[in-house]
């Protein structure tokens, strides 16, 4: 089970609402049911606010969630 590593925003030019900084792809871990996955997500380089694009949430992430739930 693996999640492909890099998930940019689905579309648009996004900045952080607090810091006004453009987002960067930052490598981090997401967690579910005692498992952790390394992914690169759009994130504010200053405050760390992180985005989960819709295509990831309803695609690979959902698929992995369901797999782990059946483990």
């Amino acid at each position: 089970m693996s999640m492909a590593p890099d998930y940019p925003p689905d579309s648009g030019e996004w900045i952080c609402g607090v810091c006004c900084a453009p987002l960067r792809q930052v490598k981090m871990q997401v967690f579910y049911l005692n498992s952790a996955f390394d992914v690169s997500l759009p994130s504010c380089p200053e405050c760390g606010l992180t985005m989960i694009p819709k295509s990831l949430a309803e695609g690979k992430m959902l698929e992995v969630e369901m797999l782990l739930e059946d483990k």
Partner: protein
Amino acid sequence: MRFDQSRLHEIEARCTQESPPRCQVLCPFQLDVRAFLTEMAQGHPERARKILDRALPLPGILASICGHPCEGVCLRHGLGGPLAVNKLEQTCLAASAPSRPLSLPPKKFSLAILGAGLAGLVAAAELARKGYPVTVFCAASPTALLTTRFPALRTGDGLTSDMEALARLPLTFEEAKLDAALLAHCETGFDGLLLDADAAPSLAPEEESIDGPTRYWRDNVCCAGRLTLTPTGHVFPEAARQAGEGRRAAQTLERLVGKVSLTAAREKQQGSLHVSLEGVAPVPRINPGNALYTPEEAREEAARCLRCQCLICVRECAYLQKYKGYPRVYARQIYNNASIVQGFHTANALVNGCALCGQCEQLCPENFSMADLCLTAREDMVERNCMPAPAHEFALEDMESASSPECALALNDISLSGGAHSARLFFPGCQLAASRGEQTTELYEHLRGNLSGGVALLLSCCGIPAHWAGRQAVFTEHASALRNHWDSLGRPEIIAACSSCIKALDLALPEARVVSVWETLNALPLPQRHCAEISTLSVHDPCTARHDTNWRNAVRELARKCGAHLEEPRLTGQDTSCCGYGGLVACAQPDLAAEMSANRAAALPHTALASCIMCRDRLATQDKGCLHLLDLLFPRPHMSAQNVAREKGPGLSARRANRAALRRLLVRRFLDEDAPEPLPTGVHVPPEILVKLEEHHILLEDIAQAVAWAESSGRYFKNLENNRRLGSYRPRHVTFWVEYSREADKIVLHDAWRHRMNTPGAGGNAAHAGENA
């Protein structure tokens, strides 16, 4: 774990789908007649030949003389005539070459056959094929007795081809006098011995001294091949019987020389295959133009085979069809699912896809219950913490919400004074309250106005979602809360408007008397404003009222009193089909639930009449015109019955809001208390977005919370291209994302999604410090 092997076998045994059809059971060689006919119907005599050669030790001889008991039990009898299995066998043998037998390694045990009758030759062929060196002692030539006994063999070439095949096996024919001396010689000179009773009648013992099923006589001797005695005293050689005895004796000899039990695990215990002939049209038997069928005639005749199988339950159920099997297979998969220690639980979806509606149990001649199996499996999964959380989470949260102080209400009849308790308690159920608040109120007023002794009211969920989800602890806790309400109201008789509620209340409050609102209404005068504009309606019974005759009768009587003409669909009453709401399948597997709803809608020819509000609303999702019985009794003002029937039920968010609204209305009306309306969220959700939200179980209150969190904390993203904002909020085990824009005095939602994985820096979590949820 709640399953063990013996329990599994008990459950499996109830499903007869894997039992052989009657033709195969009656065949002494258990020929797979169904498979043979399938190949013949497809025009593949060479493939069909392989099936014959595998099962029949002497196919040429047997096809010529067998009395074909298979045809005597064919279910086509009376529907065009039994399949001409025997003639098709002969046609197949003539049209194909014999298949090459596998040469098995030689065995060390030597076996003797005394007498070349049919039983002796069958046994010889069976044993020699398996590699045993076999000596057949016969009084004359090997075929002399056979051709005397069965004159048909003299003309056919089946005998020649079978004898040629025997010649290629480790088998020797020896001419000898079949007497006691030979018998004694063989008993000591061979490891095992078969005495052919037809070939050597003077040596054969009385039938009483032989064990019938195994044909075992004594020491290392078996005996087979008796003649058949008719009730009129006629004695004749019956090919199927003699050949069958020969096979059983051969099997016994193998066990004898191998020194294993003659009986252990020998006969497979299986119930008879049940076959429904409903809807089977008669097709006349094809008689061959000549002695044998032409290829076309053979295909046509073989195609008449019904391919007997059960699938009585599977044919009616989208869930049972979805996983391409049948209950026996599913029982095994569910057992394996519960047994695995490591790896993936591949049958979780199978367990959670069942509507627990009980139709399979009702239709099955052996009463196989997928509901019992799946509910036990769910309880087991919950106990072992293996139940995927999302399967029933939304329904359980909905149950909690419907029983929360915002929606629940316990109200004594306000006309009673001095602390007197009401004689009855109206329990509308949380879905009726969610879908038909006004009619619920009207119904309550009608009951109060027509029943003496006062009618109390309890708005709450009955707890059935917890039961269906296998969450016994949650159900017990909920039952305890219901009991407190019931006790405080003086333990009155309960009038319930939902058949699922009746089931749940029977479990939660077994000592309470619970009756359906329809029985109660049926004993009262009709409401004055009842509807009289509907003519023919197809009655749809809720699956939870399958065994509630009082419910079903009262529904019909009330509808007729309102002037409706009722028609019963094909599956009705006890056999009714689920609308797709039962067992939380709509929550766990919405697509499957939609298929169930569509199937049921399609099976109701007229506008439907439901007596459960979830049935009504589920059928309406399929654009099926459907009325609830309350629409006849308390018609909606200013709406035609046709429009009411076509109206969609409220969505998930609206249901929650409606329950709370009904409570506020009742509190104001009966308790004269202030119940302020909730403040508007200020978030506008376009209807097309709302549909998508509901599909993903995202509620408007989740949206409002997420927007409020983003706006109050300032933690959102901004899209420079269109000025939209994107915020997230994680109130429980789910993170909700909202993409919205600020427009003048309101916020407009453009999109929303959700996920369960936990991400540092999203949903209100601190960056780089995620919980490992």
